[in-house]
């Protein structure tokens, strides 16, 4: 067992598109909204805080915030977030957040997109859990879409 295996999540996927195109899909808020499944008004910029509302069928209406950390075109894009439901009037921005980092690497046939989420050592996991409390179908949906996409994800 490696130490990192218990403190972070890393996933990657080969996308058959040029890196500049992937970068745009990642950092242009209109395009991002489409595949990530959110509504957001502001643009991504280093240091910016974006308010997002999920349009995902399982988490519809769930509000969350993303604090952009780094935008290093066309390679690295990272943010911190405080996943989970807020109670009305509650401010969770002082709570521990996890760091999400996207890395784009040019490979033969396209772009390798790697996402690393780290920092699962605070309250964020418990907070994130509350999303599922509100939604009985959450995981069923995730598992279904995983199965559906399994053949397509490299």
């Amino acid at each position, binding site marked *: 067992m490696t130490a990192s295996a218990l403190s972070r999540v890393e996933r990657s*996927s080969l996308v058959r598109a040029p890196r500049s195109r992937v970068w745009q899909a990642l950092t242009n808020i209109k395009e991002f909204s489409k595949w990530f499944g959110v509504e957001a008004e502001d643009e991504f910029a280093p240091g910016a805080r974006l308010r997002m509302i999920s349009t995902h069928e399982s988490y519809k209406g769930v509000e969350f915030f993303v604090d952009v950390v780094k935008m290093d075109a066309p390679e690295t894009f990272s943010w911190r977030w405080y996943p989970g439901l807020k109670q009305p009037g509650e401010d969770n921005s002082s709570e521990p957040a996890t760091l999400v980092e996207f890395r784009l690497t040019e490979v033969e046939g396209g772009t390798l997109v790697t*996402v690393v989420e780290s920092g699962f050592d605070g309250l964020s996991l418990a907070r994130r*859990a509350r999303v599922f409390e509100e939604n*009985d179908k959450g995981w069923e949906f995730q598992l279904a879409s*995983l199965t559906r996409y399994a053949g397509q*994800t490299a």
Partner: protein
Amino acid sequence: MPAKRLSAELSAGAPVFAALGDATRLRLVARLSGGRPQSITQLSAGAALTRQAITKHLHVLEDAGLVRGRKHGREQMWELNLRQVQEARRRLDLIAQQWDGALARLKLMLEEEE
């Protein structure tokens, strides 16, 4: 699994991840993952920390249910609570599945353009 139960399990996971949010403790978990119970003396071997410091870290891990201490003669032997470690792993796997879904949607969107 019903979402309510899963949610309770994820909440229960927070102390576990807090306990693991330290390089020394992660190393202790890794050392114990061979399966054989070890004494403080064995666990301190080659470590830059004192036995007292190691003991303190082991107690944090014990409080999170990740390790168990058992008296063996005059010595306290420490072992991994494998079930708890696997639970932590499984919780991270669930989060990883969400990222799989997101990356798959990104891929689909970009490759459909062609």
